[in-house]
């Protein structure tokens, strides 16, 4: 059985209808899961003895701006055993965008999720320390959202006043 079928079958068997979409674009397998199942899926992928996706390489997000489920959280996980990188996605409603944190499964999610929170304003529930990563504390916006102007919002970032 080929690798992609193995992964898809296993996940399908375990999660059934919660697996919303399976896509295979340019040889990249991508699983879209219902957002309340993300931690269970993470645990399954990591702990299944045939899969062992032990390494989380990245967490990021997409802002679709006009779509009903406005955000998509994206995870890239890697298995040393299979030498394979898998992409997982979860669609998130706006207002407010929340999803459970995968830090209990992969510790490396800590800073990735902080960055995603900083840039997109997606709240990760159960995250141990959800502070901003790049922007200063106290900043109120999330710069990578589509409705954020590229030159910023005047006055939102304080500057020291001019020295004489």
């Amino acid at each position, binding site marked *: 059985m080929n690798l992609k079928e193995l992964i898809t079958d296993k996940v399908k068997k375990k999660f059934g209808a919660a697996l919303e979409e399976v896509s295979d674009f340019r040889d990249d397998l991508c699983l879209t899961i219902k957002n309340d199942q993300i931690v269970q899926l993470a645990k399954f992928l990591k702990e299944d003895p045939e899969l062992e996706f032990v390494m989380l390489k990245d967490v990021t997000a997409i802002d679709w701006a006009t779509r009903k489920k406005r955000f998509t959280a994206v995870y890239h996980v890697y298995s040393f055993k299979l030498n394979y990188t898998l992409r997982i996605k979860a669609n998130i409603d706006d207002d407010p965008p929340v999803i459970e944190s995968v830090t209990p499964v992969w510790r490396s999610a800590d800073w990735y999720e902080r960055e995603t929170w900083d840039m997109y304003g997606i709240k990760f529930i159960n995250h141990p320390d959800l502070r901003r990563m*790049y*922007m*200063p504390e106290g900043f109120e916006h999330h*710069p990578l959202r589509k409705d*954020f*102007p*590229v*030159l*910023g*919002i005047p006055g939102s*970032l*304080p*500057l*020291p*006043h*001019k*020295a*004489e």
Partner: protein
Amino acid sequence: MGLEAKLTQDGFITTTIDSVIAWARKSSVWPMPMGISCCAIEMIAAADPKYDIARFGSEVMRFTPRQCDLMIVAGTVTYKMAQVVRRIYDQMPDPKWVIAMGACTSSGGMYRSYNVVQGIDQFLPVDVYTAGCPPRPENLLNALMTIQEKIGKTKARDYQNRSLKELELSQI
């Protein structure tokens, strides 16, 4: 100045205190290397034997602001970093000067975006802007010479009894 020749002839010179002090100041400008990104590499190159900033008396790059009189801001200044740059500037003793090295510090450069200050002159009094991305070391040396020219025209008392009202003592 041809000092040596003068001294062997007469053994003394006449001048004004102002010009002696200005000459001393401009011949020993100690830079604060505020190297925050790629421009810093060219600033470092200006200090190496090929370009040799020591020819201008400025080889003593001090990493403590208390001993500096010229801040070379070399690199992209973000809003977050602006607070730090300003705090270091405030710690430098008067008289002090600022070179805005490179496109980023002068105008935000290619980073026309929300996180980069579009020109450090929004919060620092800049004396010389240096064009380039990054400017060549010659360009930085030229900026230094321009500053020296400027210092040469100052009078010692220009910097006396300056009011401290602008200084935020809590920041120092």
